[in-house]
């Protein structure tokens, strides 16, 4: 019996169907520049609360981007990324609360710690695939709140930790919410750039080859074990940084915030946005942040039923995710607009 693919296998050039959001096409660059200008102007037109919501969208997008690297490009399903999100969040919280480290300096620390954790976790995970990996990561997601409560001398146990509020630089003269929006925006842009560099180069092709044709990949001389471990570490690095950012922006961490549901949300956001795409992460972030509230507005008796129906709707109409389905179409339109490239 032939196994079903976890992710639809790539067809054509990895830069095409693999999901090139940051390609070399000049029309694409112009549209991206316009998007960035829009993103910079946006917080000045919105209320503080909406700015906060958008900040969270970007943070979730970074976390989902991390998951996309692992699940989308490397085919390893993780139900445990909430655990790494928590690791990043608590790294930031403990450093700020106990050692008075400034908030921006906690991000590299969270990145490093979550990378190391991811690699350490990725090594035994090499032996697992499909549902087995899902179980191992699921176990991690379940263990996270319990462990956070257990080591309460560090984590503050059930009460959690309150974080000092970050202060925006004086010369900028903007309020804290908008400043944090820009911090998250910078982080997202850097994350996208790094992910694009990794995924659209040799490493990305190796990851996709390992996902679609593991045996052929080995035969071609790709060290699949090393690439799988790298994918794990990079993925958890992104998610951990997102966790640290979330802790800083919300100003509070507690075990209840990192339940299994968070991990599931990341996977859902990832699948709905477009699993093997970079732009899909943003759609995923939007879904994670806004759809629960929307569902609550539609029916406060059974909001998660509405959320589930939204998931069904997305998966039936766009089984490859929003960006995975729509992007090739936009890409063709852009191709027609831009200078012609012979393929």
């Amino acid at each position: 019996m032939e196994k079903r693919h976890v992710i639809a296998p790539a067809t054509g050039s990895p830069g095409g169907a693999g999901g090139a959001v940051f390609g070399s096409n000049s029309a694409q660059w112009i549209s991206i520049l316009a998007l960035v200008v829009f993103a910079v102007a946006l917080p000045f037109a919105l209320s503080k609360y909406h700015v906060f919501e958008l900040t969270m969208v970007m943070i979730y997008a970074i976390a989902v981007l991390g998951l996309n690297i692992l699940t989308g490009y490397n085919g390893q399903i993780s139900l445990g990324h909430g655990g790494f999100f928590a690791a990043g969040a608590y790294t930031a919280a403990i450093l700020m609360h106990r050692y008075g480290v400034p908030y921006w300096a906690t991000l590299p620390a969270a990145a490093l710690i979550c990378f190391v954790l991811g690699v350490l976790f990725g090594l035994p995970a090499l032996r697992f695939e499909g549902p087995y990996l899902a179980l191992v990561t699921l176990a991690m997601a379940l263990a996270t709140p319990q462990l956070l409560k257990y080591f309460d001398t560090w984590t503050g146990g059930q009460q959690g930790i309150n974080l000092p509020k970050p202060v925006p630089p004086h010369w900028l003269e903007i309020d804290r919410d908008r400043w944090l929006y820009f911090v998250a925006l910078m982080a997202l842009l850097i994350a996208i750039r790094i992910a694009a560099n990794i995924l659209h180069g040799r490493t990305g092709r190796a990851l996709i080859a390992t996902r679609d044709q593991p045996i052929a990949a080995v035969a071609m001389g790709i060290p699949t074990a090393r690439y799988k471990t790298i994918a794990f570490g990079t993925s958890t690095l992104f998610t951990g940084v997102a966790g640290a950012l979330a802790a800083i922006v919300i100003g509070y961490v507690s075990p209840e915030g990192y339940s299994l549901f968070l991990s599931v949300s990341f996977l859902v956001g990832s699948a709905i946005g477009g699993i093997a795409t970079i732009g899909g992460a943003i759609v995923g972030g939007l879904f994670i942040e806004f759809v629960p509230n929307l569902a609550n507005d539609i029916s406060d008796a059974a909001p998660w039923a509405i959320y589930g129906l939204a998931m069904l709707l997305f998966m039936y109409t766009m089984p490859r995710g929003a960006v995975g389905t729509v992007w090739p179409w936009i890409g063709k339109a852009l191709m027609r607009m831009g200078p012609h490239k012979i393929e």
Partner: protein
Amino acid sequence: MHQFLQQIFSGLAAGAIYASVALALVMIYRATDLVNFAQGEMAMFSTYIAWTLVNAGLPFWAAFLITLAVSFVGGMAIERVLIRPVENAPVLAAVIVTIALLLIFNSTAGWLYSYTVQDFPSPFPDRPVFGALITTRDLGVIAVTLVMLAMLFIFFRFTATGLAMRAAAQNPESARLCGIPVGRMLAIGWGLAAAIGATAGIMVAPVLFLDPNMMGGVLIYAFAGALLGGITSPVGAVVGGLIVGVTENLVGTYLIASQLKLTVAFALIILVLVFKPNGLFGTAIIRRV
């Protein structure tokens, strides 16, 4: 020693429930290559149906049989209507659909029946027997599970439909060429899985009490049991479920405060899987380039 044996027997009773749900997961995995994350919530919903029937005055076993029938039809309908559109989609899309189903069932049950914890009647009296080693209720649960397993074994081993279902799961293309309606077989598989889950839900409800989140923990242990036994092996699912039930009980009693029980139980299971990556009874997946 007496306490140790007691813990083993009550672990077996819990394990029988995990084994049933694990078996349901394995049936669906073998047929459609996907882990049905909604299995537990489907069972929970079935249990609510049984609860409604019992409260309406039906005798317990009549309510039980009607619930099984309703669950069977419901499971088939879910496969035909909701799972079929993603039959050929990537596995991840199908997994997301089952997670969506989990949320829908959980939320709908909360909406219809509220999140209040309800008493559920047990058909078996609860008193200790065999020198207080086991209660009659645990014995009853184990007996019902064994009867169900025997019936399933007979169904798959000795009936034409059972044979056709095995063929459809093992090699859909060849089965179709032999004239087996593969789609209908998959639907029956989902129906059976739903009925097995319903049995597990009804058996566990008197112990855990009925609420919409009742099956969350059960599903996770069942998933662990299915994988421990080998996700491709029905026998493995049963053995794995029983092992998980006993391990969970022993870890909780002897090793560590119940706070970290789940974590330690999982760590042990994963340790076993590191050495047997395809589970105790599973077959290695053979891949071709």
